[in-house]
């Protein structure tokens, strides 16, 4: 195994190259740029969760002093149907209508118009002067109502997809999906023990601390430059071009620093609106969402309703498993039911299983990716069910999972055979971890759960420039959301054989580097990292050629070792090795500047598994859960920057704990979110959490030059069930629904006691 490889810098934790600017306030995030002559855009949002727009009159707003432009649905081109790829992708028409409503508003907070004015305050006054007449319709607010056959329709033109025949009636079920293998009835017959459970999880928000923000500057020829916080400026450009029916070449997108995304900044909300406002106003237009707008109108993760049934023999072998899962899509189709269905049983080697999944429209904001989209919800159900199964069988929950764990060669429930994977290694690491065996305080509970994410590859580009003094500039196209510049520098330094400090990485805009898909899918270190390594190999090849020319020997007589060209053993040349700096200094004489390039569509992203251990104490009077300890164990393939890998694991754990214990969208009967602020939508704060212990397992991914799998998403998957299983252990009652908030726990304890 590649364990023996001795790396010089990979696996260390140096200071990130963009660090000083971020601890001194210099770094520019989405809202930090101001341009001369700039004005401010604001969005008018629907006060109803479901209504037909009868009339919009913007004339009073347009006439106001200090107002430069006003747009509404009629100013946008007719939106075509058609798919747009990528993590934030989906149907273009849906994307367009989500940005600006046309004939109907589909959730409270849905944009209906926008203005650009001299100041934020004038813009707000102008919004108040816009008259909109609505015909209010009944909102569809939960899965049960939405899936009922007589439900009011969110979209009268929505016919369920993937059925054998096109249905004759429209429905709120936008699509269904089925997955299966073997014969589940027979499997359940062979079972000695069967557990069944039904789990509901409300929508949760990604909760990035930076609200969406952008500036668009459109000139009189229609060309526009947009600065924004985004997980992928190339895809934002593509989406904006589609929505506005523009030529991508007329749009330049510059990614600012990004203050968190977690999937939520893979999709455009403001940018096309700002481009239009700027086009009409002939000035740069800056738009910034308020926190309330972020909650009401940007993508949360799906609320779900999931049922699972698992049967096993006395020795723990699972004989059959079924899952039924409904995912809220929000107002437009596209809930992550697919990944939910494909991940629910992914850790296990199952002969018989069946999954049915539903993508369901409701009058709530259109969901967006949130770290491992779909998996936390479905795997929560399965991992809770396995906990119950282990209890019934009197088996250790890790042993039960080891008994059924997928391994190299296992056919994944979603199709392919797994190459080398780290699930068993993680389970064994958990079993041997002191945090698993140490005694619990009186009354406390411990739970474990497995997490998984596919990870993706996709397209990336990178260029490597060797400066005239031998220092290295890496240019790539993935916004750095959690230290990826440092990882790129580490991989470049390792490949070239130079010190880390000699390398800097920058994120190019859409006109200065090649296309890259979003920073998402845990792909950046894997795919963009691979492009950086290939671009460095390109440099090495050029350096060897130049050394060969300098020395008058053949290229294959030149080696690249420790950052310098050396003659191969036995080569009859009396020469001194040439360092990168030597070759760069002489570049003009040997063929010009050194520029290495690579672009690729990365294949072979490696699945990443995890095991989490949660210790909790529950106050039976108040229902408050204290997290005493939390241990995250995950296969990273290879940790390039160790501390940032741990950071992903710890951050995902905190988000998962928040979802498990506290976070939820609360709606009133009219579909108005009641907790659209950080006071009432309470994400974990420092005093809610303990230190989060990490163990990085490294089972290298054979498809990456350094073994990287990608680590960003798996961390949020296991904490939900690990925490729920710990609460179950502490209170002796299985509470199926999340969050495990104090009122829910008290109610469950009271119900069990009476």
């Amino acid at each position, binding site marked *: 195994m590649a364990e023996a490889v001795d790396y010089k810098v990979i696996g260390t934790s140096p*200071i990130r190259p963009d660090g000083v600017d971020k601890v001194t306030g210099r770094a520019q995030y989405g809202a930090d740029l101001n341009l001369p002559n700039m004005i401010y855009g604001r969005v008018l949002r629907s006060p109803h969760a479901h209504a037909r727009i009868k009339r919009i009159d913007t004339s009073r707003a347009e006439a106001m002093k200090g107002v430069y432009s006003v747009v509404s649905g009629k100013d946008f081109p007719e939106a075509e149907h058609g798919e747009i790829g990528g993590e934030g992708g989906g149907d273009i028409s849906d994307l367009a209508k989500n940005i600006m409503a046309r004939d109907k508003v589909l959730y409270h907070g849905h944009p209906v118009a926008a203005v650009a004015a001299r100041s934020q305050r004038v813009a707000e006054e102008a919004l108040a002067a816009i008259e909109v007449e609505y015909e209010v319709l009944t909102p569809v607010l939960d899965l049960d109502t939405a899936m009922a056959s007589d439900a009011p329709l969110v979209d009268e033109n929505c016919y369920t997809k993937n059925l054998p025949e096109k249905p004759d009636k429209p429905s709120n079920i936008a699509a269904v999906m089925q997955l299966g293998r073997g014969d589940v009835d027979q499997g359940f017959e062979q079972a000695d023990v069967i557990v069944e459970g039904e789990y509901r999880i409300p929508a949760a928000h990604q909760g990035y601390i930076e609200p969406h923000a952008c500036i668009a500057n459109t000139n009189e020829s229609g060309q526009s430059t947009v600065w924004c916080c985004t997980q992928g400026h190339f895809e934002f450009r593509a989406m904006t071009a589609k929505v506005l029916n523009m030529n991508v070449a007329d749009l330049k997108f510059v990614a600012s620093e990004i203050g968190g995304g977690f999937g939520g900044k893979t999709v455009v909300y403001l940018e096309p609106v700002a481009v239009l406002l700027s086009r009409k106003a002939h000035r740069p237009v800056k738009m910034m969402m308020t926190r309330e707008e972020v909650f009401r109108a940007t993508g949360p993760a799906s609320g779900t309703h999931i049922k699972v049934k698992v049967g096993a023999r006395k020795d723990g072998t699972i004989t059959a498993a079924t899952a039924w899962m409904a995912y809220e899509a929000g107002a437009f189709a596209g809930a992550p039911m697919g990944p939910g269905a494909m991940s629910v049983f992914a850790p296990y080697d199952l002969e018989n299983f069946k999954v049915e999944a539903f993508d369901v429209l409701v009058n709530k904001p259109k969901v967006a990716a949130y770290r491992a989209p779909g998996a936390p919800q479905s795997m929560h159900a399965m991992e809770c069910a396995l906990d119950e199964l282990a209890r019934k069988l009197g088996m250790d929950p890790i042993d039960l999972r080891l008994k059924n764990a997928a391994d190299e060669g296992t056919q994944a429930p979603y199709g392919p055979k797994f190459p080398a994977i780290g699930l068993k290694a993680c389970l064994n690491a958990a079993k041997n971890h002191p945090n698993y065996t140490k005694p619990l305080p009186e009354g406390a509970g411990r739970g474990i759960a497995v997490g998984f994410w596919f990870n993706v590859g996709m397209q990336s580009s990178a260029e490597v420039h060797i400066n005239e003094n031998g220092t290295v500039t890496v240019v790539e196209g993935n916004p750095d959301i959690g*230290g990826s510049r440092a990882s790129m520098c580490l991989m470049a330094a390792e490949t070239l054989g130079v010190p880390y400090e000699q390398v800097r990485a920058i994120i190019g805009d859409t006109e200065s580097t090649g296309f890259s898909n979003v920073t998402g899918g845990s792909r950046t270190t894997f795919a963009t990292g691979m492009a950086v390594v290939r671009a460095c190999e390109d440099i090495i090849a050029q350096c060897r050629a130049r050394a060969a020319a300098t020395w008058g020997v053949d290229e294959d007589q030149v080696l690249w070792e420790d950052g310098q060209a050396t003659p191969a053993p036995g080569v009859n040349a009396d020469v001194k090795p040439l360092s990168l700096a030597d070759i760069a200094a002489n570049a003009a004489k040997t063929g010009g500047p050194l520029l290495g390039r690579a672009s690729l569509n990365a294949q072979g992203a490696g699945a990443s598994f995890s095991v989490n251990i949660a210790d909790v104490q529950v106050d039976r009077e108040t229902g408050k859960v204290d997290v005493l300890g939390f241990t995250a164990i995950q296969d990273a393939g290879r940790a390039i920057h160790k501390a940032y890998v741990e950071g992903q694991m710890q951050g995902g754990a905190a988000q998962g704990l928040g979802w498990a214990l506290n976070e939820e969208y609360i709606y009133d009967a009219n579909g108005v979110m009641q907790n659209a602020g950080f006071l009432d939508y309470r994400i*974990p704060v*420092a005093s809610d959490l303990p*230190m989060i212990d990490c163990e990085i397992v490294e089972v290298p991914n054979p498809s990456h030059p350094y073994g990287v799998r990608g680590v960003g998403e798996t961390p949020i998957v296991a904490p939900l069930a690990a925490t729920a299983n710990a609460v179950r252990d502490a209170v002796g009652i299985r509470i199926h629904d999340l969050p495990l908030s104090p009122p829910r726990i008290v109610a469950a304890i009271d119900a069990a006691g009476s």
Partner: protein
Amino acid sequence: MSKVQVTTSINGEEMEFLCEPQQTLLEVLRETLSRTGTKEGCATGDCGACSVLVDDRLVCACLMLGVEAEGHEITTIEGIATDDGLHPLQQKFLEHAALQCGICTPGLIVAAKSLLEKHPDPDETTIRYWLAGNLCRCTGYDKIIRAVQDAAKELAHPA
């Protein structure tokens, strides 16, 4: 509405500005004075991204009016480093990888500075409660707490 003239000190520098009476200190810092190191995460006092020191008191700049700065000394993230270089908190945040996206970092460093001025040797619980008003969605706080502990040590016994 007519603007009010305000005289204040920002990071030790005398400063005069005009602001509307309803403008918050955060708006003034970011939009009028281009001190964009102080961030806005909520504008309702719930996230701490806008933390500044007013004289020696830790304040959410989004909850204070610009006119209230009159006669006070304001310290923002831009005023934490000195001629000698980064403040130990800034250095330790870097060394411990206590920032991922970094949007919460300015507020956390300002809040932690205020903590260490009042409690030079805080235990973990004290740090966690002091920083409970500063949301970080990326890190799970672990490395932030360690960075603050390490900075406290460094300040007590400069290397």
